[in-house]
């Protein structure tokens, strides 16, 4: 290994600036595309392909249409300084645990998580996908760095994330199972609407290390999620309007939006557990590890 030189730093900075500009342009283009017209009836949205995938616009929920109760936001006492906010120390995601939508137990959990970061007990907060856990529903939708893929068949839709090969299955039926055992992605049933939208209804999501956002907003087993994934008229973007209900966690339903843009990426193998070590002593949540072989 050779030492880093001033030239290296200049090149790295130039790359960073170019990447940031490219990213900002991409996000800007997506933000500008606020009108999504429905395609012709009698079709289903073209989500799955071997030639394209979908890349999320970011790791934050966007605001829903006016009049709907939106997502949990940053703690106003600790405004976040993000990567694209210019010079200054980047800060961590500290959710607004004082949001009145939260039940007391959920607020306490979020406050505790924030305190871990503010006191230095943990330098980086838990995010499921960076620690090789499934991101849950709807949290998995916020994974931004690698594309998402679909397979669409008559009775089922598969959502596949390149990241760690995570797979969600959506059964195209109108009824949930009589008994649903809580699991990482719960039980999802779905249907197509208007030729451009996949509507997914999910219950049975395990609350263990599962959050609805990257603020570590928790939920209980009563969580019910409706995702409406609508493909833009030009086919180049998906917008999801997500409704989250959990009467034991939230005083009213939350509505949140995520977007993806179409990218020409084939699915590559990404293995999260490889070299995923706490190199900088950040007291990261350990990755899933078996104490002994399963069989």
């Amino acid at each position, binding site marked *: 290994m050779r030492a880093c030189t001033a030239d290296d730093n200049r090149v790295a900075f130039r790359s960073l600036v170019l990447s940031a500009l490219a990213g900002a342009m991409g996000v800007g283009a997506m933000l500008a595309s606020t009108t999504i017209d429905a395609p012709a009836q009698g079709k289903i949205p073209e989500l799955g392909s*071997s*030639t394209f995938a979908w890349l999320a616009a970011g790791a934050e929920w966007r605001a829903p249409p006016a009049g709907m109760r939106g997502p949990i936001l940053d703690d106003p006492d600790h405004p976040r300084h993000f990567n694209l906010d210019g010079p200054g120390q980047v800060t961590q995601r500290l959710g607004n645990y004082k949001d009145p939508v939260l039940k007391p137990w959920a607020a306490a959990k979020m406050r505790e998580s924030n305190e871990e970061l503010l006191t230095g007990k943990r330098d980086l907060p838990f995010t499921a996908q960076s620690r090789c856990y*499934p991101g849950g529903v709807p949290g998995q939708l916020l994974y931004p760095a690698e594309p998402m893929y679909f397979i669409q068949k008559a009775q089922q839709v598969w959502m596949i994330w390149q990241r760690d090969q995570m797979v969600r299955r959506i059964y195209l039926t109108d009824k949930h199972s009589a008994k649903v055992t809580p699991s990482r*992605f719960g039980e999802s049933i779905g249907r197509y609407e208007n030729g451009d939208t996949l509507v997914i209804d999910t219950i049975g999501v395990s609350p263990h290390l599962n959050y609805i956002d990257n603020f570590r907003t928790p939920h209980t087993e009563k969580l019910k999620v409706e995702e409406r994934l609508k493909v833009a008229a030009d086919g180049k973007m998906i917008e999801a309007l997500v409704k989250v209900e959990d009467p034991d966690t939230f005083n009213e339903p939350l509505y949140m939006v995520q977007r993806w843009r179409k990218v020409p990426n084939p*699915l*590559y*193998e990404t293995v999260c557990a490889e070299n995923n070590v706490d190199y900088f002593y950040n007291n990261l949540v350990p990755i899933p590890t078996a104490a002994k072989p399963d069989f």
Partner: protein
Amino acid sequence: MKVFGLGDRRGAVRNCVVLCAAALLAGSVVAADAQDVTGIYWTTQYNAKVQIVVGGDLPLTPAGKAAYEKNMAGLKDGSIVDQARITCVPDGPVRAWATPYPFEIVDGPTGNMTILHELNHQNRVVRMGKPLPKYEEIVAHPSYNGHSVGRLEGDTLVIETIGFNEKSFLDATGAPHSDELRTVERIRRISPTQLEIVVTVHDPDIYTRDWSARFVYNLRNELRIEPYVCGEPHRDISQIPGVRRP
């Protein structure tokens, strides 16, 4: 890594013996009516050690023998960690088919076949009707599952794969392979309710000749593939013959 065709370095006659034996064995059961290979499958048997179609031991080269002995000793004394079982990285070639957990074969998205395993939530993309990539195109990106292309030969899905990394074992005992490994998998229904997969291994650095392993699974479309998180409780596999919980 160089990419070789089957038998480029070891003689077509020996390849033919292996492949013919595999074909004869496969042909010993009544061929199914024309049906596709998609569906959810669950094995009928688990073997920690890979079983060669013609029987006998793995035909190891001196380098292969040394690698196997090193792997077995390391797995026994703990100096080598079986990452596929401890941190749940993909099982990789051959070993993935020995899974005691269900998997599914999906005809899609258009142009691909996709193989989704419950164990370690592994997935494989098989690009149908495409040629294998050139050596230069894959040498920088070796992976557990390699680069797979497929074609249909009658009722049989034939998958050729190259571009493996060297981080996996071919079985749970530590059977080695190099990044020159090339596999040919022949997947077909042998009855309306059973699937057969015959994997032929070509790895001239490690094995003196090509060899094949055969796996049989029951069609279990009533199952749902479940999430799999390392170290957490999983589906009960105790009824699979050969499975031993440590």
